[in-house]
């Protein structure tokens, strides 16, 4: 793994006389919370509002390594995977069909905790379509689960007294039945 200093040096080489820069695809460099450095294609990086704003607002040079303190490297790998695919499929004819196939594969073996982590990252990096997708995946996962499960998963404390909880249940007792069987 190259050190930040080495990386910055190699970037300086790439952005030499203006003639050579035009030939090479622009790259943006970020550093994750756990110290890893990633080089992103400009078009993929620009899908993330947070990164886009960082560089565009104050016209910051691409030589700067942007810190992403709240993102772990494994999470960024997943984000890059999704956004690269999205950008690739964006203008294709079968966009929806192919994206759906990719999405199904993408979340196939993800644990609920992974989904929650990714939702945090998607929110932090401000990637709307990725956030919506992850939230949909979380919703699909919890829709047939019971109240206890949901509390544990999201770390929500039960602030109902036993009485209050029973009262709340009576508002829609049918909603607590047939949790496995139905395909809501």
């Amino acid at each position: 793994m190259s050190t930040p200093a080495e990386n910055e040096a190699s970037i300086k080489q790439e952005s030499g006389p203006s003639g050579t820069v035009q030939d090479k695809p622009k790259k943006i460099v970020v550093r994750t919370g756990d110290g890893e450095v990633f080089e992103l294609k400009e078009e993929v990086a620009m899908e993330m509002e947070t990164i886009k704003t960082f560089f565009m607002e104050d016209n910051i040079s691409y030589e700067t390594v942007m810190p992403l303190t709240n993102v772990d490297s494994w999470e960024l790998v997943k984000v890059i995977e999704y956004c690269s695919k999205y950008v690739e499929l964006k203008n294709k004819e079968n966009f929806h069909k192919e994206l759906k196939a990719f999405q199904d594969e993408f979340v196939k073996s993800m644990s609920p905790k992974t989904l929650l982590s990714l939702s945090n990252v998607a929110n932090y990096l401000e990637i709307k379509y990725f956030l919506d997708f992850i939230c949909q995946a979380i919703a699909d996962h919890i829709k047939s689960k019971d109240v206890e499960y949901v509390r544990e998963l999201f770390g929500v404390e039960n602030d109902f007294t036993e009485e209050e909880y029973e009262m709340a249940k009576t508002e829609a007792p049918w909603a607590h039945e047939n949790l496995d069987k139905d395909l809501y």
Partner: protein
Amino acid sequence: MADFRKTKTAMAEHIPEDVMINVLERLPVKSLMRFICVSKRWRFIISDPQFAKSHYKLSCENQTIRRRFYLSNSNRFALDSLDFESPSPLLREVRIPFEQPGIKYWSLRCSCNGLVCAVVSVSTSAKYHLYIWNPSTGFLKRLPDPSFCVYSMSVSSGFFGIGYLSATDDYKIIKPGEMLSLRANVWKKIHSPLKDLYIPPEEGIRVNEALHWFYARTPSIAAFDLATEEFRTMPLPAALKHTYYAVLDCSVRLQASVGGCLCAFDFVMFGGSIDFWVMREYGVADSWAKLFKFNVPVPSENIYESERLVVSDTSITLERANVGFL
């Protein structure tokens, strides 16, 4: 390097509330009604009318609205709720929430966005009571009694309709002579240039934020605009206009297509063929186009029958229902 997320417990990962709401907006109603028991904060969020609106909007966009059919039950005070779209349809008994002493009969007259308008006739009163009910969430509201009850003892007479007006985020209910806005909660007299007697006692079909009925007089279509609160007529396809129709024997049925267009077809009580027309451009007489024609088998029973054609992307179903009093 301080990282707020590293303080999370072993099991749970904390996500900000607006992300949580994004997740909640994607849940079906049944899950939401269960999750009001998760915590007081969750109950507050889910019960918020703003949330209900954005949830419904998203459901419409993603087409995840489940359609349920409410059928009469041998129990006078309950309905069977049937979800056709689940692979193994579940029948669930739903008790009516407006059961009361002296109740004579009741019926569900019209519905919109999951809200149902129920009419209840009670022996102690000449007028009938109206309720707005959401069977999915249990919401129930009694409406003020209407002023005009022309056929005061008969619950089924007179046309009825309910529609949503997005500009004012309001629901409006129309019946002969008057209209009620849910927000205003008062009945307002409606002066109509049309003769109410020529409009069949059915639910208005909603297209383009207006309600539509077959109008036997011209014959044409009677339309009530929810925004201007006025009645007007619209033309039927020429082929359906040639015969005189008696009001209760009306042979033309209207409905809305999946894409939001107004459709019309002949009603066939004794079997025969059906011509199905669609008004491609709302309000434009020339845009009526015949979509298809098909044959219908002769029904075995002839109580007052109501037919509906359900047209989806992949199939066409002819529904027949026997309508009677409960």
